[in-house]
């Protein structure tokens, strides 16, 4: 055999003997599941908060239903309540009872070009003690596809025997007519499924009030934000946009975490902020596609603007922090972001620094000067994430703790950070032309 071919064949044998990783199937499924709406970790936490701390969260907005649906006033408010009062929507009022007595009633639905909203009640005479009873897995079955739940909120009565839920789904295609509302519960450790059939009444659907393409690009330092389109309906306003990925990848980044999409973008109608309903992002290689969802627009719109409050971006800097082995925890500020150095220790020729920042803050170009010698970052060990309630601002933030490992030990230590990726504040206003 010739030498080159030998070498090539040797590697071929390695490939031939590769075992397909067990997680491949799950990863493929997950990639597809996230396809529709890949929620940011923080959005996920927020939606859990919505479920459990419903009253404290001002979630002004899911659209809603026909003859006024009774009993939903505490679950919905603002736009939906208003529409409910006006009897918009379609009454269904059909039930399904599981053999253990749990009863699900689909009270009504509301449809427009942005969503299908389901209003339903779960009744459990013996009480809903376990968490999994609180949140069923849901989807609506149409002609060719399943429409998945995108978010929702519910409220239980004091006895925990009845919960009123309002859930948003993707909008049904124009050809859909006969659909079914499906739900799974885990009852006595076994999954059980129920469904309620219903017929969509197109006469009751509300369509849209504004629908137009925008296609304009705005630049934020080294990132482009492109606004594609806006679609406003009686229940919500959806803006589609795409955001260029960050060119840099922070060193401090742990695999599988996508921080490119962190952003805070508000919608202003006639100068007043419209409540945010949530947002989703997905990416397939290139740009990150954003779907920004806001409450319905007020009636007389004269001016519509987007305010880009924060966008994840990179910043070069030169931050130097003096440290000592076994020092007490130290809190410092890096581009207005809090950074806590929890401890510094040395072991077997390495120096370890444990530090905590908000999860969106990542460090790059990091060195440790050990007795006048620069040592590059050797490894980052992820310690985990934590939710911290900031009382002054009345909101929760997610913190990220990790250990930075550097080769070498010594007495005089200086941590040098030359670049960070963090949510930069812009507060720039973009006008959306409306015809």
């Amino acid at each position, binding site marked *: 055999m010739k030498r*080159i071919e030998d070498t090539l064949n040797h590697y071929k044998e390695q490939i031939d003997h590769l075992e397909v990783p067990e997680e491949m199937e799950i990863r493929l499924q997950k990639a597809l599941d996230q396809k529709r709406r890949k929620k940011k970790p923080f959005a996920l936490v927020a939606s859990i908060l919505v479920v459990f701390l419903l009253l404290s969260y001002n979630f002004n907005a899911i659209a809603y239903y026909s003859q006024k649906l009774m009993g939903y006033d505490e679950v919905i408010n603002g736009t939906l309540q208003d529409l409910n009062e006006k009897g918009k929507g379609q009454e269904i009022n059909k039930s399904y009872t599981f053999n253990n007595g749990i009863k699900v009633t689909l009270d009504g639905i509301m449809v427009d070009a942005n969503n299908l909203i389901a209003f339903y009640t779960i009744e459990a005479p013996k009480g809903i003690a376990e968490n999994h009873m609180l949140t069923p897995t849901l989807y609506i079955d149409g002609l060719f596809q399943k429409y998945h739940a995108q978010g929702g909120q519910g409220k239980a009565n004091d006895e925990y025997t009845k919960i009123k839920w309002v859930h948003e789904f993707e909008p049904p295609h124009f050809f859909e007519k006969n659909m079914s509302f499906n739900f799974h519960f885990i009852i006595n450790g076994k999954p059980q499924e129920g469904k309620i059939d219903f017929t969509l009444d197109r006469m009751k659907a509300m369509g849209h009030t504004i629908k137009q393409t925008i296609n304009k690009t705005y630049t934020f330092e080294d990132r482009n934000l492109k606004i594609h389109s806006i679609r406003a309906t009686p229940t919500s306003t959806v803006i589609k946009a795409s955001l260029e990925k960050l060119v840099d990848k922070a*060193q401090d980044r742990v695999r599988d975490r996508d921080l490119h999409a962190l952003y805070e973008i508000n919608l202003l109608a006639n100068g007043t902020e419209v409540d945010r309903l949530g947002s989703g992002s997905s990416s397939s290689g290139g740009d990150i596609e954003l779907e920004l969802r806001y409450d319905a627009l007020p009636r007389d719109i004269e001016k519509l603007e987007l305010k880009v409050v924060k966008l994840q971006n990179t910043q070069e800097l030169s931050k130097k922090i003096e440290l000592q082995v076994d020092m007490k925890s130290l809190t410092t500020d890096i581009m207005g972001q809090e950074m806590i150095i929890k401890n510094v220790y040395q072991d077997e020729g390495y120096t370890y620094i444990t530090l905590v920042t908000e999860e969106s803050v990542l460090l790059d170009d990091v060195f440790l000067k050990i007795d006048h010698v620069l040592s590059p970052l050797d490894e980052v060990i992820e310690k985990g994430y934590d939710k911290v309630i900031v009382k002054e601002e009345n909101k929760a933030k997610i913190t990220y703790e990790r250990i930075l490992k550097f080769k070498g030990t010594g007495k005089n230590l200086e941590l040098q950070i030359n670049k960070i990726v963090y949510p930069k504040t812009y507060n720039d206003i973009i006008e959306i032309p409306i015809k």
Partner: protein
Amino acid sequence: MESSHIIKRAKKGDKEALVHLIMSQKAEYYKLAYAYTGNKDDALDALEDMIVILYDKISSLKKDESFYSWSKTILANCCKKILKNKKKIIFMDTLTEQVYEESYGVKEQRIDIQNYLQHLNSDQQEVIKLKYFLDFDYKTIAEITKVSEGTAKSRVFNGLRKLKEIIGGEYYEKD
């Protein structure tokens, strides 16, 4: 044929059907991704990118029977994109961290051949990996790389010649 039925379902947006199609040839897909990326993490990333694109585009696939070659072409492109991005990163950060990550736990032999392959241009690298690591015929290579069979052959030939200059020793074109 069973698979044509599943392809039809996948075309209608059935995610399970799409996953099933890929998993029915999981080794082929995984090896292809691995041959390009050289490690498990990037290979799985590429497969994820691929399935998302397949899901978006499958409705425009005209011939059902070309699903596998079509999807493999997309996979190859996803891999190239990952490699391209990676290259950028190593370039910009001249730090050692990435390099540690790269070489850690990798077998000697592989570093060898991968290092040599680095000296070829990306088109040559690609065809050599497809031809020698995956044993693909020229027709398949031409489909995946979207060039004519003649071009694919000449890329393999030129790639081998260049390898020879670097490594020394003999070479010939394997048919």
